[in-house]
């Protein structure tokens, strides 16, 4: 088999070997810890998980620990809530950040610099210090203990707005100018020309938004009271608080928390990486 690079040139064998060696080394480093966790979660109750030297593969693989997780917390209900919250967060962030990013990058109006500054400052605020103020605001809006309240504070992230702004800034002006001459209004230029060109960045924003919502713990905990509305991270915390010493069960819980994200990402990755390349249209 002949392996060629993008420009059709043949890659030397030694270079290929070197590349794959490096790739495998990094792979071991990035994925290894997750596999260790997976292996721990599959080990049965009779298997000693503290052996040294470590036992990498479970002796008698079992799904028992996953059953116990499902017995302890309503995993599916919590996962459904997490999916709802994360999906909503993706939609609002993609729409809101694209709109705001476009306004900051392309539209001329007074106060544009101030608006940009507002987003930059928002990115710098240390979140740990403002959580109670956020909660009281939410209560004043009568939204506490709803899934909407979980989504709202992060539904248009400042960081995402700035990412979109940069993506739009990198687009060449000429195309939009041509459309403008053709009589396209702002909205048409945005939806038909600008937006399709930044699909890559949108994919990045979508994944960030999904992760952010899926992984958040403290805010959902504070704003939700009703157990039927809890998200998966809160459920995970039940596991950790209840079975802190049972490494297998905690491992099973972490696998449940991570697996959907990895699956989702694996499905989207082709689009994601192609998009990342496309999104950075030659400026």
């Amino acid at each position, binding site marked *: 088999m002949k392996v060629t690079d993008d420009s059709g040139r043949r890659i030397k064998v030694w270079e290929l070997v070197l590349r794959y060696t490096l790739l495998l080394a990094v792979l071991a480093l*990035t*994925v290894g810890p997750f596999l260790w966790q997976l292996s721990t979660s599959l080990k049965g109750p009779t298997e000693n998980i*503290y052996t040294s030297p*470590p036992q990498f593969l479970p002796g008698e693989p079992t799904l028992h620990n996953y059953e116990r997780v499902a017995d302890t917390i309503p995993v599916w209900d919590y996962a459904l809530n997490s999916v709802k919250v994360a999906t909503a967060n993706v939609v609002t962030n993609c729409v*809101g950040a694209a709109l705001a990013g476009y306004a900051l990058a392309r539209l001329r109006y007074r106060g544009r610099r101030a608006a940009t500054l507002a987003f*930059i400052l928002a990115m710098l605020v240390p979140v740990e210090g403002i959580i109670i*103020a956020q909660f009281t605001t939410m209560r004043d809006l009568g939204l506490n203990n709803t899934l909407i309240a979980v989504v709202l504070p992060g539904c248009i992230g400042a960081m995402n707005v700035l990412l979109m702004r940069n993506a739009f800034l990198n687009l060449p002006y000429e195309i939009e100018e041509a459309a403008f001459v053709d009589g396209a209004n702002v909205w048409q230029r945005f939806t038909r020309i600008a937006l399709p060109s930044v699909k890559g960045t949108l994919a990045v924003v979508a994944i960030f938004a999904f992760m952010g919502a899926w992984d958040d*713990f403290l805010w959902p905990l504070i704003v939700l009271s009703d157990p039927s509305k809890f998200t998966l991270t809160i459920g995970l915390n039940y596991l950790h608080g209840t079975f802190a010493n049972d490494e297998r069960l905690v491992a099973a819980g*972490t696998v449940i928390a991570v697996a959907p994200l990895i699956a989702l990402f694996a499905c989207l990755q082709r689009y994601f990486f192609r998009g990342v390349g496309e999104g950075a249209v030659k400026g």
Partner: protein
Amino acid sequence: MATASRVRRQLPVSPWLFAAPGLLVIGAFVLYPFVSTLINAFTDRRTLIEGEFVGLANFRELLHDDMFWIGLRNSTLYVLGVVPALVVLPLLLALLVQKNIPGIAFFRSAFYTPVVASIVVVGLIWVWLLDERGLVNAVLETIGVGRVGFLSDQWLLLLSAMAVTVWKGLGYYMIIYLAALANVPRELHEAAAVDGAGAVRRFLTVTVPAVRSTMVLVGALSSVAAFKVFSEVYLMAGPSGGPAGEDTTLVMLVQRTGTGLTGRVGYASAISVVVFVITVALMLLVLRADRRSET
């Protein structure tokens, strides 16, 4: 497209309408709460007790608070330790996965998994790995190095937390670099190769200048994130911040003093304000260094 739009020439869409949802959200849920933090910084407010105005007393107290200086030291060290690694390593990684060789899509996604996992999960995994009897120490012992107290020594703890931050950040910044690298015209590399430049020289003379602005962006983003570090150190060193609290970072101090039913909201707010001012300064510094090197 052109024919359709000629009919409705200009919709009355104000630019503000585009920015409004975003501004509203960050205004209501980030900036407004932060303004109340600013005000609280000049009061002695506690979680359940309304405070009184105390002027600069909180800031004066900061100057004599050993823990504040420890926090400032650690947050600064964190920036110094993490940022260079996160500017350089992901770039090298991006170069490694850029070339389309068979199976590369798998490697790209695999390198991204640590980013996808929640920080709590990452914390659980690494505490379990770096434990005195964990996997890493078991390996170190078999190769004769002996066990290392990653999670008990003040400096090793900070280093371990930094390593985890870098580990989790690699894939994230790799993506940003991949996007930037896609912009580097291939002809540049080819010209350099024809000139007989080796891989290292090509990297320094072609790649680095081409992605310089991205490096600045990564530098700015990672330094702000590093200065505000909380989760990694909190999860690995524990809520009280390692032995004798020596691994406490500034944001951990905000959390520790300001939360709970007996939290000193006023004092914690003052620390928050300091963190905010320093991150703004850090951002400006990076951007200015960028402008200077540009000219």
